[in-house]
């Protein structure tokens, strides 16, 4: 279906990534946000608080991130599209509710504008050190989707994508921005509403007696009812059967947890988005994401000027990790170079997916700034030897 024009601020704008993310959420149909102030993410909900009453929706500033991350899920079960926005320390507090959203299959979006950590770390400065937390932060086995924009334009475009994926798979989607992308101001083009494709919610229209809250039709994703429609359904974070009733047996646990994983796993290739450049002839491939991909571009250009065959693979989807793509490349290149604003997170996935067929060079940075392209160039030179 097409976007509801009320939420779409069609035009050419000069705005930062945080504001673009807010506009993406409104365009995607988000009509509820619950937040708690935290640098460098707050601008997203500040704009939402100003805009949403004119679009037909609600923002509430909750008392903490625990409240913010569960209030939005109440809103989703009330029928709204909803999200929250935070940064490192707040993201840590939200982990339990990411697990709750995964377990109850509540479609929603968590925006994390990453800053330096651990703990309070660097409130106003960038990092990309929450990438593993986004994937593994809540307890138990579950699957999420995570996207990494590298520009304000992508903060708009991919926020819509994040909501669409949340609806398609009924999972919480992590929108992994970073401080630089969040605060960078660039041109953002917002198209007309009828040019924006929206994935509708899997809202059930089954007869009351036929509806099974966690029954699926083959693709592993159940249909959803809203409170107040008469279904009298039950939602729990406990292990549950297809009726949504708690069931503490290993058999039901196995069936449920495997389905939660499988529904995302089996669609991993269709979810995987990346930008690639000159991979065909490459002997070294630079794998990057978010703001680091823009710094890496300079290093790639410098290396090419020196006659090196360097390809670029920018991850737009971080999770599920596009391992097939990496495995395929690993069979025909010499090495991967993986710069990121952390001490080595996604590089582990690259190394794992490469399966020893190509070398992997991490270019780590503890955060607080971005790489110097020279650092990445050095790694490319070393990898090319």
């Amino acid at each position, binding site marked *: 279906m097409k976007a509801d024009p009320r939420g779409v601020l069609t035009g050419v704008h000069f705005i930062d990534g945080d504001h673009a993310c807010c506009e993406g959420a409104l365009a995607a149909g988000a*009509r509820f946000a619950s937040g708690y102030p935290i640098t460098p993410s707050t601008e997203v909900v500040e704009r939402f608080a100003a805009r949403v009453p004119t*679009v037909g*929706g609600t923002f*509430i500033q909750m*008392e903490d991130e625990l409240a913010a991350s569960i209030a939005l899920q109440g809103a989703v079960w009330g029928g709204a599209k909803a999200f929250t926005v935070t940064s490192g320390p707040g993201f840590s507090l939200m982990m339990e509710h990411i697990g709750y959203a995964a377990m109850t299959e509540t479609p929603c979006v968590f925006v994390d504008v990453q800053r330096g950590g651990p703990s309070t770390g660097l409130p106003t400065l960038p990092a990309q050190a929450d990438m593993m937390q986004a994937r593994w932060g809540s307890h138990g086995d579950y699957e999420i989707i995570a996207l990494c924009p590298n520009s304000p334009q992508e903060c708009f475009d991919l926020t819509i994508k994040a909501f669409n994926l949340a609806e398609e798979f009924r999972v919480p989607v992590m929108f992994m921005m970073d401080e630089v992308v969040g605060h960078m101001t660039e041109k953002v083009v917002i198209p007309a509403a009828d040019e924006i494709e929206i994935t509708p919610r899997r809202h059930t229209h089954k007869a009351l007696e036929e509806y099974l809250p966690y029954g699926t039709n083959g693709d592993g994703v159940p249909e959803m009812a809203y409170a107040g429609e008469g279904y*009298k359904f039950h939602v729990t974070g406990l292990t549950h059967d297809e009726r949504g009733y708690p069931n503490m047996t290993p058999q039901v646990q196995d069936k449920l947890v495997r389905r939660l994983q499988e529904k995302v796993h089996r669609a991993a290739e269709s979810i995987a988005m990346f930008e690639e450049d000159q991979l065909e002839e490459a002997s070294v491939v630079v794998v990057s994401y978010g703001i680091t991909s823009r710094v890496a571009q300079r290093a790639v250009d410098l290396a090419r000027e020196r006659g090196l065959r360097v390809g670029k693979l920018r991850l737009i989807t971080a999770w599920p990790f596009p391992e097939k793509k990496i495995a395929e490349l690993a069979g025909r290149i010499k090495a991967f170079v993986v710069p990121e604003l952390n001490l080595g997170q996604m590089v582990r996935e690259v190394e794992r997916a490469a399966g020893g067929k190509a070398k992997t060079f991490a270019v780590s940075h503890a955060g607080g700034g971005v790489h110097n392209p020279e650092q990445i160039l050095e790694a490319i030179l070393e990898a090319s030897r």
Partner: protein
Amino acid sequence: MSEAINPVEPFLRSDRMPHIWCPGCGIGTTVNCFARALIESKVDLQSLAIVSGIGCTGRVAGYVKLDSFHTTHGRAIPFATGLKLANPKLNVVVYSGDGDLSAIGGNHLIHAARRNIDLKVICVNNLTYAMTGGQTAPTTPELSITSTSPYGVFEPSFNLPHLVEAAGAVYVARWTTYHVRQLARSISEAFQKKGFSFIEVISPCPTLYQRRNKLGDGLETMKYYRQKSKVRPGAPTGELGLTMTGEIIVGKFVDRDRPDYQTVMRAQLKEALGERFVADPEMTCS
């Protein structure tokens, strides 16, 4: 001969029986009162949703035949807040225990009362963490023995009616599970209120709290409730502190009106935005 049906049975998920509660536990009694209040107050069941946290009382959501949400520990109130704000037509009840609502969820309790979100909170107070084996709660009376206070509790306990009145609740009552009619009436009254209503129900946990403190079984506790409860409507909430074996002051203490969160929000946004404000949004997607 037709079988007699308990009038509350249609409100229960009979396919989930037997329930997990122990003999002598008071939670089932409160559910009975809740169902009777639904009958008496003729609340539209289709637009009624119930939200629980974690713990013995947290299981209530799973046993009542309503749209029901068993959320995370302490977070029933913020979940209910989102549900109510996104779908204002719903009547939202939060049904949870003392540990869930006043310890891990204490911050949400006071802020929801402050905001005057239109929620009906039923807090079953069994003075302990029962699901996990009888640990000290913020509500456990001083000198009680619990599994984590083997030498006696030395922390002062929370007086919940006092707390929520101070935070801004518009309706505050307390009963025990002995006061079944009064409790059902209070729940019915809360359905007539718009705003944050809080009903505390003092309830026995014979398996853990009563046993460890040699306070007898469920029946003994009913006798204690009957003998030591004093009905004092309008009593100053500051005087409602509980001890192990002393008086339990019960009644309706607060019944006042102030505009609820959404009423104030709409008025403010209308004032500030005029025609640009979309007053009655349809937030429900597809």
